[in-house]
């Protein structure tokens, strides 16, 4: 870490060293007041000094805040329950399926939303009962479907082949299975993810509802749709609510089913800067209240009459992923080297790259130093440690000079990194969680050689690098 002692006391009257720099003024680039504030740095995470964390757990290091996770979920639920009486939340495993993260949410009442056999098994292994699991996704092999049906999990059907398979299993086990169908449609504000579920406009979805109504084995009780991710225009959700309610009406009128749940999927944007979006997150990302307003107002309007006829209001389900987890996690990385590129730009090499920070492919994450930097900020490229040209953490950021050994905090990184990170070239680092009261625990340990070779098998004649005679 940086020296803790007072430099003046250490070196008499010597001034602290500032790496000399010269920067040419280019038209359109000369507004140093237009960029990052030079006085911004971050010394701790939830009051635990970053130096201490790195000393104890190494670098790079993921740091999760438990209270932030809980707070975020509370805020989301408050926004919705204040506007609609019956709200259920399911934690989307793929966003971050570290056990400690999942269980924090489960303790707050979250169900599990899973999309594969692995995720299903993980939720069960953590102790989530089958009836509190929503099972989405286009690939649910027979074995896991059999288990899910036996354990009364909520299956969200993606396509007709799956529908037939569920019907077959149900017949074999003599069960009547409550199912949800996933819908897709044009909201007018998002690109339709038409590859998932049944299309509303073409009539596919109502055909599926008919098909289920005619089955002895199946009961249609839920509608689901996940319209996209990082949806910045909350009006898309208003449109989704209207379209799904209209479909609910049509399906109930035509097929006689009774819909109990309306699942809106995920997709709320987090406070991260998407590449290619000009304005910063605080200016473009709607609040939970704005999303809630967009969904609940048309939802109440559309179901008002239905509830007047004595039908209970459908349960509103949310599978919000990134917006509740992203800003609860940071990545600490260490500067390995400073360089000049042939074109004159400055760059630093950090020990975390796209292998640990997969989301660097689409976000301009916030990067803060952990001490006050002295000197003129300059356009800088931050590269990761990989011997690969694509390993770029930030392609351009204004930073004052850094020293090798300096640490940087990258945030927010809670969504889709601990699940999409790559075991590529480097070991994956430690992940710690800071609990209330500044207590820190290791929630996933850094990989070692064993973690990777444990799954390999060397055929006998390849067990040595030397050819046997």
């Amino acid at each position, binding site marked *: 870490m940086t020296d803790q002692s007072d430099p003046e006391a250490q070196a008499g009257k010597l001034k602290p060293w500032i790496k000399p720099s010269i920067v040419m*003024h280019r*038209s*359109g680039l*000369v*507004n*140093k*007041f*237009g*960029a*990052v*504030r030079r006085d911004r740095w971050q010394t701790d995470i939830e009051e635990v000094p970053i130096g201490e964390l790195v000393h104890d757990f190494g670098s790079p290091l993921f740091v999760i805040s438990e209270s932030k996770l809980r707070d975020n979920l509370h805020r989301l639920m408050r926004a919705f329950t204040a506007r609609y009486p019956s709200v259920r939340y399911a934690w989307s495993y793929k966003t971050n399926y570290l056990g400690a993260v999942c269980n924090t949410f489960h303790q707050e009442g979250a169900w599990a939303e899973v999309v594969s056999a692995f995720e299903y098994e993980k939720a069960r292994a953590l102790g989530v009962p089958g009836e509190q699991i929503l099972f989405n996704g286009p690939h649910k092999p027979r074995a896991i479907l059999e288990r899910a049906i036996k354990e009364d999990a909520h299956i969200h059907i993606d396509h007709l082949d799956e529908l037939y398979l569920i019907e077959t299993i149900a017949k074999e086990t003599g069960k009547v299975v409550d199912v949800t169908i996933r819908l897709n449609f*044009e909201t*007018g*504000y*998002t*690109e*339709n993810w038409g590859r998932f579920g049944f299309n509303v406009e073409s009539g596919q979805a109502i055909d599926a509802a008919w098909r289920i109504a005619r089955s002895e084995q199946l009961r249609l009780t839920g509608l689901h749709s996940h319209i996209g991710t990082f949806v*910045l225009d909350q009006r898309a959700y208003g449109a989704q609510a209207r379209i799904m309610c209209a479909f609910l009406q049509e399906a109930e009128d035509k097929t006689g089913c009774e819909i109990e749940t309306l699942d809106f999927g995920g997709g709320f944007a987090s406070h991260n800067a998407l590449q*290619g*979006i*000009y*304005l*910063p997150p*605080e*200016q473009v990302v709607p609040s939970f209240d704005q999303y809630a307003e967009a969904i609940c107002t048309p939802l109440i309007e559309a179901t008002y009459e239905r509830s007047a006829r004595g039908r209970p209001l459908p349960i509103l389900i949310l599978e919000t992923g990134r917006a509740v987890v992203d800003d609860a996690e940071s990545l600490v990385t260490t500067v390995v080297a400073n360089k000049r590129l042939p074109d004159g730009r400055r760059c630093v090499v950090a020990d975390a790259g796209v292998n640990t920070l997969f989301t660097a492919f689409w976000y301009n994450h916030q990067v803060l130093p952990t001490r006050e930097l002295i000197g003129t900020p300059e356009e800088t490229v931050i590269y990761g440690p990989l011997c690969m040209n694509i390993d770029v953490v930030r392609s351009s950021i204004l930073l004052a000079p850094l020293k090798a050994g300096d640490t940087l905090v990258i945030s927010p990184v809670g969504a889709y990194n601990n699940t999409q990170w790559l075991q590529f070239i480097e070991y994956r680092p430690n992940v710690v969680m800071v609990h209330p009261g500044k207590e820190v625990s290791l929630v996933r340990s850094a990989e070692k050689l064993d973690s990777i070779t444990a799954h390999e098998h060397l055929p006998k004649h390849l067990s040595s690098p030397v050819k046997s005679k």
Partner: protein
Amino acid sequence: MSAIMVAPNRIAVTGMNARPDNPGPGLAVARCLREAKNYSGKIIGLGYESLDPGLHLPAYCDAGYLLPYPSSGDDAFLERIELIREREQIDSMIPCLDAELPIMTRLAAELEKMGVATFMPTSAQLELRSKDRLDELAGHAGTDAPKTKSVTEAGFFFNCGQQGWHYPFVVKGIFYDAEVVKSAEQGAAAFRRISAQWGLPVLVQEFLEGEEINLTAVGDGKGKMLGAVMMKKLAVTDKGKAWAGISIADERLFDASAALVAATQWKGPLEVEVMRTADGTYQLIEINPRFPAWIYLSAGAGRNLLEVLLQLMRNETPPEMEPAPAGVIYLRYAEDNIVPLADYESVIMHGWRVPVPEPENHKQ
């Protein structure tokens, strides 16, 4: 935001990017302020680039300051305004660029706390002018609006005929940019280019032939439109920006704008853009939540709208005014301003140009 009563005496005006080919409105606003009969205070020009011409023009701006780009976030913006307030004692701000309005309206209360007053639209009024709500706006104005649709997939351009969309029509970005397309291939290409830059949805809009006419005025926030000036472009640059225009008296444009202001209770400056088509329909194209770059025409036509804005900021009731007389022409030209190297240095190194103090000793 029940505005505190202020008597603006040190006004900051943004948008000093008075580029010859596509000027921001700030410098013209400053010029109107200079000539306003009810204002003799200081004018502080705010811009984003050290070469923004308005920063360097003492005739209109007593001092010039750089601002952080709206993209650097609320904190950086507020901090810079606070510094400018401390140094220049600014007491009010007139934002002149579209991209500033969202951040300014969101931070209006904080600015006010800081002692910086504004008179601008509310966030809800700003949202109304989002391009995909044109129909709603036109409803308020009692005009037509070009048929507009949000498109999220390039596939639309290949079967749009079935939905009643026939080439040519216009493909527009949600914030900026527009291209007339004549075929499915062109449409899909424009869709990809524009969505890559400005995101989804992309809008398609009926291609209208006709004459664009504009109106600028100030809404008092209670439904009244004040001091309208109407203009028809006489000549445009290759970017489609007017460099000459003439004031007109078009009753339908006036009535439509007044209805809009009444229905939305518009607060602050606005510009209304309308297309008068060959067959006599009036189509609402857009409203901008600020003064236009041609605002000096208002002073030229004897309806200096900055005087009106100042009266509203002071809680005075502006007198009833006849619409501006027709037939006043403005002709924009470029002029080379001489800038001392020291001023340029100061803007680069400190982000400001401040007046050079009078030397105490005039002798050698």
